């Protein structure tokens, strides 16, 4: 009897230790997200166009939207102001010699620096206009995107930007971006 008690004590202790030493792979906290809940928040647009909504716009349609909602900060022609970045401008021959040349206009615009056209839609929807983010309709965002691409001489004024055409737009700087390699060495890079 004593031995049986002692043995069961050992077994109980061992079981308790097991529970303490091996936390579960899942705790069961939180709850399942419904498809509707995911859809509400899932606003990102990828470089492959995944996430782009229905709708369309041209530079012609985008000009009045830009003038009304963007020009105050970014300038009437996207030239930038002291409070907001320049959006329009190309470097001669798209040379991209930002690091080695310190002369001339080296502003990082949509036309000279942005590698993916899809980023325009994604970012405008997230954060613009600065004082009223999230207020533009998909057609307005497509149109302003088309306007900026046309001003940078990447597409024509009547080119229709939509979920299919936007990811196919090749930006002048598309092949300029390389992965960070600093940690491959302990020398300055």
């Amino acid at each position, binding site marked *: 009897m004593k031995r049986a008690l002692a043995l069961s004590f050992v077994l109980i202790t061992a079981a308790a230790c097991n529970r303490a030493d091996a936390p579960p*792979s899942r705790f069961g906290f939180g709850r399942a997200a419904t498809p509707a809940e995911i859809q509400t928040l899932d606003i990102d647009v990828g470089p492959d166009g995944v996430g782009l909504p229905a709708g369309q716009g041209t530079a012609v349609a985008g000009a009045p939207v830009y003038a009304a909602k963007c020009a105050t900060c970014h300038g009437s022609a996207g030239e930038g102001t002291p409070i907001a970045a320049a959006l329009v401008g190309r470097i001669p021959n798209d040379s991209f010699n930002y*690091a080695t040349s310190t002369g001339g206009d080296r502003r990082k615009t949509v036309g000279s620096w*942005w590698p993916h056209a899809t980023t325009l839609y994604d970012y405008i929807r997230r954060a613009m206009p*600065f004082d009223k983010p999230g207020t533009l309709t998909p057609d307005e965002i497509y149109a302003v995107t088309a306007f900026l691409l046309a001003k940078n001489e990447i597409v024509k004024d009547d080119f229709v930007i939509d979920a299919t055409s936007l990811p196919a737009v090749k930006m002048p700087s598309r092949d300029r971006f390389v992965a*960070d390699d600093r940690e491959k060495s302990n020398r300055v890079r």
Partner: protein
Amino acid sequence: MARRDEQKRPASPASVTDPSAVLEPLLSRRSVVVGAALAVGASVMQGMAAPVPQARPTPPIVPDGPVPDPTTVLGRLPNELGVRSQFEKAKRRPSNTSSQSPLDDLYGAITPSELHFERHHGGVAVVDPATYTLLIHGLVERPMIFTLDDLKRFPSASRICFLECAGNMARGAKEETRAQQVCGLTSQSEWTGVMLSTLFKEVGVRPDASWFLAEGQDAAVMSRSIPLEKAFDDAMIVYAQNGEAIRPEQGYPARLLLPGWEGNTNVKWLRRLELSTRPFMTREETSKYTEAIKGDKARQFSFVIDARSIITSPTYPGRVEKGWIEIRGIAWSGRGKIRRAELSFDEGKSWVAATLQAPVLSKAHTRFRHLYEWDGTEVTVMSRAVDETGYVQPTVRELVDARGPGSGPYHLNPITGWRFRPDGSVTFRTEKWA
């Protein structure tokens, strides 16, 4: 004790934020204090029968004129929320987009939460913790939503590490520049939360996932793509900072913490994580937070903060006197622990190791100090950090040679220094960049 010249006095009682000053405009601040003290004294004499008047929590009493002998005046009684001494003036230095920590006013390794640097892209979001949720979806077995209480139920972890804005260098700074202005977009806290790996195990990461999007709920709906490996290395979702809930400007009620990586990736007011096969190419990882390098290229996904250091004392606008001076500063590296902090008194020809304050933690501001006997002649003191990987903090020249004169403005970590002048003034060691 003489009143300090810079000390601000309220112009009128109504200008003080204490509501009592508005409610009792006829009483001077001094008489309010004396009245409260007398009332308390009376209640003590009555054996605490009378209710003790509520001690006023804020602001500290700013005396009119000289501070009286504190042994002759009953002090403030215990209250609910402490404030720093009325004589302490350390402040952040704000611009429209950021505010810098007053590195030259700080001691030790922890930045007081109220002086932690700020950088945000759509102002400080106000998020209700009662309705806060974090959604994790995409390439996972079980898309899930976690409340703040859910996050706090998971096993917790605390870690001391620095945060730093990738654009934390004032290139071409003038002699009259404070350490705060040179590189004050870095601060250090003890962060508490749940390891991101714990949450990712809870939802079950699919084998084809390799990146995840971290998204905030500020006006910029800040978003960055993060390699999945970081989640299983040391990433955390944190809800506490220095023992209390994290500050609104640090992402209340929960943010991503990626130790050693540029501040922008530590997404604040975090609302969503989406796992994917590829990065999302958001604005902050394409048009911003990318650096031109030689070869007509731009460096992208440059996450890690390279080793650097700065002397914080003595610095401009402080002064020095002949004799012993303890030179103090901080060194840090996003790659790991600081191995050495070194000082040069001869424009970098030779270096002497400073003393490191224990504990030396990985990816953490590390205090260094060095006793120096100054003979009163002009001398320039420079500091450099060496981390456990052997990376040595570079000079401006080495950075420009490696990347080109037009690189930047991100991940610039040059050696800096300060000049002690015979008149006792201290100025920033200026340097030409291009």
